[in-house]
């Protein structure tokens, strides 16, 4: 199971570094929760521009520009077993300053897709 997690992290790591061109990327284990952490090559499109800062949401956006990616495997023909409990567990292991988790969903079609997850309610971006 652990080696499987490691392999999954490797897939996401490689994808982030060499397809998404992230920098300062590393794999960190928060106890039993492996996280690929790094800096996107450019501001993520979902964030608001600095000059149009959305005050109510801005505290959710990491100040050091780092994102925390949790890898998860998704098979077309298997259940993921992923639930809100899994999310509770992941967030319970992360330091409090991390408000935003990115799910890196590794599909069996060869792609990785990324989704932001916030605990609680989050408003959509303004524009």
């Amino acid at each position, binding site marked *: 199971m652990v080696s499987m997690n490691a392999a999954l992290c490797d897939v996401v790591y490689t994808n982030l570094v060499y397809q998404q061109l992230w920098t300062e990327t590393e794999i960190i284990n928060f106890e039993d929760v492996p996280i690929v952490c790094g800096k996107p090559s450019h501001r993520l*499109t979902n964030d608001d521009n600095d000059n149009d800062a959305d005050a109510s949401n801005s505290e959710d956006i990491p100040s050091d520009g780092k994102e925390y990616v949790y890898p998860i495997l998704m098979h077309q023909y298997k259940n*993921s*077993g992923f639930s809100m409990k899994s999310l509770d567990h992941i967030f319970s292991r992360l330091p409090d300053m991390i408000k935003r988790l990115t799910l890196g*969903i590794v599909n069996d079609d060869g792609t990785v897709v990324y989704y932001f997850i916030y605990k609680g*309610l989050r*408003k959509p971006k303004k524009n």
Partner: protein
Amino acid sequence: MEYRESFTKAMSEKAKIYLVGSNLEDGDGDDASSVVPVLYDVDDIAKIREHGVAGVLIGTLGGAPQQNVFLGVPLRLMMEEALWLVEVGHAVFRHVMGQDLIKSLKGLDGEKLQKFKDDRANDVAQQLEWKRANFLRKMKTLRGASDVAVPSDVINERDEQLMKQSIFIETKDTSAVIEPSLNDQTIDQRKICEQILRQNEKLRLNYKVYKKLREMGYFMSPGARFGGRYVAYPGDPLRYHSHLTVQDARSKDEEIDLLNMINGARLGTSVKKTWVLPGINENGDAEFYSVEWAGFG
């Protein structure tokens, strides 16, 4: 000013929510959760709006019956909205079956029935009076003060007939008999709520989510069009964009359909709404996670 007055009056009483479409007294046999909560009184509709419940207008607008954009009374509520209003004490449930209505109509003594007739006759008389006055005013201005050949305060037979023919017969929104006949009928509000919730597990879970969001200040409306149970607005939907597409409530260890989450969040991104996953924890409280497309990958 007139608006403000009626507004204050409306706020002072509980709104009346009528449960349509089923026989509640049937007890457990019937599905109490499939009654439809409906409001007819515009004052009541205005009042619950101040409490954060907008509802959906479902009636044809008499003056503009050829479109579906602007609809009129009655107002239909989601069951969650109705339950919350009643539970918090902003509204009361009423339940009247058609046959009971007729019974109470037939049971009216002659005096009361006569009163209804008189009211109608009064209304007609008032309209006629108003029309006469109007007519005369017009005549005067038309003919000028100098014309004395025809007395200006006489309306001939034909005109009188036309005026009578043009009197407007209105179908009123609210009933003149239901409320008075129910006033003394005491319904155990808590019992109805329990009865409704008992029979529908999904509603029971979703109601916790609705309640939590409502207490956080959100207005909710039915969300199937956006792929959710609710669409949540940060204020009155008349003025504000919706922010959240809230999914059906689930227990926290229920598996998340990732494909569904992916298209939900994708859709959310394109319509500027966060995709919200509500779960009910062991204590029965609603908790949330918000999901949005990261914008890459």
